């Protein structure tokens, strides 16, 4: 670069060549379709010709938020999604942290467990959904037999089929599968803490419990934030597991309906419901803004948090 004189510097075509393929794919397949989806939410189908759409401003949103028949479905899907997220936050991430805290001591046995504990995370939602559907099925009766071992057989219920327990059951199945992600991220953060930092505390006679909460945990706060953000984005974008477990109708009686299944049902139509692409786009836009708010909050928080460099 130095060899060229400034006014005779040729246009850097190689930069264009290097960047063009990625940019073209990214813009055509991600950026434009996303903007297209967002803008479609401002249109509705032409009443006579379904192939044409007319600009109707925010009417889809008004319909989504306030329609007598439709808005309760939207609000309950949103509520279920919040519950889904809260269960992940209070069950998945603390257990992930606990397992990581145990694993980070190192050693051969722990390396073995690290490999084993991550296995559910590599399986597909479809597989996980059906596996648990079978296990919880009263026809097979496997769960009842297991509960009987602890003389708790009387507690058995077809949890996936009952309105009051279906959402919690689905969330816990998702937790079962996804626990490997927070575990491995916390694990990575914990083993990066240099031993000298902990040595001083040990010499002072602090017990492991105290060392964990007073020294290690504050140091891995950035990872706690990252895991929270990832859980949030993943949960408000979830679909596969509920679809596999409960179908697109997210039964029983829509009790497991979340944003992803509501979008799918609205966009493609389902049984008595006609497909409505523009309303589907409206739901996707709501998902987009929810996730965007989560990401922005995370980024602002991240800027204010001290990251320790060891």
């Amino acid at each position, binding site marked *: *670069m130095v060899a060229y004189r400034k006014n005779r510097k040729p246009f*850097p075509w*190689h*930069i264009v*060549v*290097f*960047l063009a*393929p*990625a*940019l073209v*794919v*990214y813009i*055509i*397949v*991600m*950026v434009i*379709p*996303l903007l*297209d*989806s967002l803008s479609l939410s401002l249109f509705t189908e032409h009443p006579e010709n379904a192939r044409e759409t007319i600009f109707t401003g925010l009417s889809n949103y008004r319909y989504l938020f306030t329609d007598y028949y439709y808005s309760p479905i939207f609000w309950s899907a949103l509520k279920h999604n919040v519950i889904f997220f809260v269960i992940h936050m209070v069950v998945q991430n603390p*257990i992930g942290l606990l*397992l990581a805290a145990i694993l980070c*001591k190192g050693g051969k*046995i*722990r390396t073995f*467990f690290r*490999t*084993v504990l*991550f*296995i*559910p995370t*590599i*399986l*597909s*939602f*479809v*597989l996980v959904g*059906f*596996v*648990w559907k079978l*296990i919880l099925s009263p026809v*097979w*009766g496997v769960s009842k*037999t297991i509960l009987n071992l602890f003389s708790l057989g009387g507690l058995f219920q077809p949890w996936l089929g009952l309105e009051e327990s279906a959402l919690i059951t689905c969330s816990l199945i998702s937790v079962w599968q996804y626990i490997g992600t927070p575990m*491995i991220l916390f*694990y*990575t953060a914990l083993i990066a803490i240099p031993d000298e930092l902990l*040595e001083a505390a*040990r*010499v002072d006679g602090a017990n492991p419990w105290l060392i964990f909460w007073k020294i290690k945990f504050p140091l891995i706060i950035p990872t706690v934030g990252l895991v929270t953000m990832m859980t949030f984005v993943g949960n408000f*974008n979830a*679909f*596969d597991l509920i*679809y596999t477990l409960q179908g697109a109708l997210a039964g029983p009686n829509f009790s497991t309906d979340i944003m992803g299944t509501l979008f799918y049902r609205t*966009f493609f139509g389902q049984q008595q419901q006609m497909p409505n*692409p523009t309303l589907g*786009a409206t739901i*996707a836009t709501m998902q987009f803004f929810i*996730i965007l708010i989560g*990401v922005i909050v995370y980024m602002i928080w991240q800027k204010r948090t001290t990251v320790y460099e060891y």
Partner: protein
Amino acid sequence: MVDSTVLQKSMQSPFSYRIRNWFGEMIPILILIFWSVIALFPIYLILMNAFKERKAIFKLPFNVPSAETFSLIGFQNVNQRAHFGTYFFNSIFVTVIALLLTLLIGTMASFALAQYKFKGVTILNLVFSIGIMIPIRLATVGILRLMVNLHLTNTLAALIIVYVAQSLPMTIFIVSSFMRQVPQELIHAARVDGASEYRIYGLILPLIRPALGAIGIFTMIPIWNDLWWPLILAPSFETATVTLGSQQFLGQYMTDWNAVLASMTMSMVPILIFYLIFSKQMIKSITSGALK
């Protein structure tokens, strides 16, 4: 980890300390064993019952198949009714091509973003890093319209294109951070020797091999397991992937327990083997900071 304080303490109260120490060692291990059982038990149950006859599935679900209960009827039923061969071909084809394209296109862009200073670097970095956090699924409506316009619905090409776009932001983020660490003297030396910029790109690639391996594994698993895009873009029978194919098969034949368990085994085993082979590299690559 026996330092002087610990020794002192253990001398002061040897018995109670030993008990506490024993608990301190055992309880964590017990927790690990407990959660491992929870994690593995469902998988064990599927694998074991896939090789049993129907009666034994219901009577002795927890047992390992024995000479009397062993049966491959489930696998025979699956092969008669579903075309797992096609599904496997589709999944492997889509995953491998998407992965290769992602690595090629992604490393090229990363090279430019890491090595050159030009107007717009910051904006491009920002645009790509937003793509890491905003899931591509939110663009589903637009992507489906795009594929319909291009007459690409129900083709594997549609899936490949979407998977490349989906994997690019993360790939670029990781690879460019690796490329920034390549010593500049090396690149200068190559330029002085008259190497073209394309040649330099080729020289750098082998240097960041660990990052490429990690990206390979971490892009592959979500693509292989994905249900959303096959369901929306390519739901036809000829283009079904393993995940979609087994989803449809399982939904349809839920009452044929042998076939259900066998098909689950068939879609689970390849990914399990892949994981067991690469688990060390996978976890090493995360912990070494390749994916931070």
